[in-house]
């Protein structure tokens, strides 16, 4: 058989040519495909860059007019075109602080419960339920907050706090229900799932040898957790809390619905206030004029920058924990 000799007939030549053509088409379509995937990946980066560019451009009228004073000014006057971000920043920080204050013990406790204390049949379902909390849309939590939590806070919490601890400026003023306290509680509800999940992963990653070494010294379960487990995963836990902070800072709907939309710097937790997100949500549609809109966009820019920094920092901490874990194995 002459199989190794090139077939010099016309049909043979056409066959060879057709094979090469299909191969090159394959190579071409392969190239197109890989390049398309590359473009898509770069598009993600482009979107982020786009955020930075566009937000800056649209905030320019306000940036040019107010400069750095925007951050420390408390005014908000559409008529006089004078705007300042301070009450919004204050409200964001205050409500997030209250939220974290409530959420961190509950989340840490839940994480410890899920990894150390709970019987194994309980761990899956309880984890699942806490994750379900994260799946509930913000607007529904806001709805519940407005009609269930706020009356409860007004009647049972704020009145009680006001009568017992009313000498503190923190608890003065009429109990509206809506305000920083309710917003803080709502934020706590919203960040508990993420702090719990990341903390749980951090605690799980502690090698068993550490636990056993502590137990073998005659430590109780709690002492083992406190002395051997928690210090080991410290950075992961901090990362979890900071991730929760990032979530709390950007939370919009639920907070908007329970914070009462008052633009002022007040010391009392009972008073209505605003966050950056709630201010944008409340006023963006009615805003007219470059400076007004520019101010709202500048608020968005501030929020963008802060959450970006917080999230990057948190990711670095959590990433370091997983790297340390890999290195010690």
């Amino acid at each position, binding site marked *: 058989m002459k199989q190794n000799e090139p077939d010099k007939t016309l049909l043979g030549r056409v066959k060879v040519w057709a094979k090469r053509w299909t191969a090159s088409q*394959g190579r071409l379509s*392969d190239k197109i*495909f*890989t390049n*398309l*995937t590359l*473009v*898509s*990946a770069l*598009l*993600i*980066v482009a*979107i982020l860059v*786009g*955020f930075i560019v*566009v*937000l800056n451009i*649209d905030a320019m009228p306000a940036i040019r007019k107010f400069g750095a004073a925007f951050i420390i000014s408390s005014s908000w006057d559409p008529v006089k075109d004078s705007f300042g971000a301070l009450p919004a920043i204050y409200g964001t920080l205050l409500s997030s602080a209250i939220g974290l204050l409530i959420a961190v013990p*509950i989340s*840490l*406790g839940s994480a410890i*419960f*899920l990894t150390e*204390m*709970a019987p194994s049949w309980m761990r899956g379902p*309880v984890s699942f*339920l*806490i994750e*379900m909390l994260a*799946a*509930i*849309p*913000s*607007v*529904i939590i806001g*709805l*519940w907050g*407005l*009609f*269930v939590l706020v009356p409860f806070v007004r009647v049972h919490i704020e009145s009680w706090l006001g009568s017992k601890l009313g000498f503190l400026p923190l608890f003065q003023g009429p109990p509206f229900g809506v305000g920083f306290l309710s917003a803080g509680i709502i934020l706590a509800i919203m960040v*508990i799932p993420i702090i719990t999940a990341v903390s749980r992963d951090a605690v799980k990653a502690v090698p068993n040898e550490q636990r056993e070494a502590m137990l073998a010294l005659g430590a109780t*379960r*709690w002492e083992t957790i406190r002395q051997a487990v928690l210090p080991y995963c410290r950075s992961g836990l901090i990362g979890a809390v900071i991730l929760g902070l*990032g979530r709390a800072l*950007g*939370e*919009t*709907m639920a907070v908007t619905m329970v914070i009462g939309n008052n633009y002022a710097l007040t010391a009392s937790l009972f008073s209505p206030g605003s966050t950056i*997100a709630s201010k*944008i*949500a409340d006023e*963006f*549609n009615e805003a007219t004029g470059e400076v007004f809109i520019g101010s*709202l966009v500048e608020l968005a820019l501030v*929020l*963008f920058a802060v*959450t*970006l920094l917080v*999230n990057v920092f948190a*990711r670095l901490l959590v990433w370091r924990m997983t790297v340390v874990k890999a290195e010690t194995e």
Partner: protein
Amino acid sequence: MSEIGYLRRKWLNRIMSALSSAAAGLAILVLALILGYTLAHGIAFLNLDFLTRAAGPVGEAGGGMRNEIFGTLILITLASILALPIGLMAGISMAEFASPKMAYAVRFVADILAGVPSIVVGVFAYAIVVRPMHSYSALSAGVALAIIMVPVVARTAEESLRLVPNSMREAALALGITRSRAVIGVIMPGAMTGIITGIMLAIARIAGETAPLIFTALGSQFGFQGLTKPIGALPLQIFRYASSPYPDWQQQAWAGAFLLILLVLGISILVRRLSNRRQS
């Protein structure tokens, strides 16, 4: 070892154990309260009218959220059309073709993008779509929701593709097919469950998003008027009605919330079932 010291330790252990259980219990209690109230109020006010009628005039009883339900479905579809190709292709790029450095960089950026507050995404979509078009539109809302979807889809697709064993890749390439054919024909099907759960998670996420819609979709008294016109959506309407002083509208807000929770939790539970099945 002193008796008092030992007792103290024993009791501290018990108290801490109880506290941690209480913490987990509290979290679940809150979940139960939220779901419970939504269920109770929602079922009470959910009726056929709600599903089939358009919104009534301000303050008047009656009317439903038919248009808004459709609006949500339309926006989900629109956002998916925009986001899925980009997200999937980016995920494929990170998992299969990109250099490790580039994959890391894109992954990092995707994670950052996932953390951007949704209201900021709304402002961005306003700036690049609503402003040039001089009109609120379904398109701008679709863009906003797509931007939220893309990082989620990309990351879950990437992670699912990475789980496909290398032996499969090598076997495919040994057959002489091109890399892209290998990815599309062999590797992706192997990662399909993970990819689909990622898509479903992203959809569940955007179905409940409200903030980006406030100044992109705006909401509309009428039904679907085209992609370039404003459109109503379920979460948006819930927000508007809940913030209103009219009891009838507030009841409709609960009904809408009930529907929305059914949708979102339904998808989440399905996702969980699928990924459990995949693992076992």
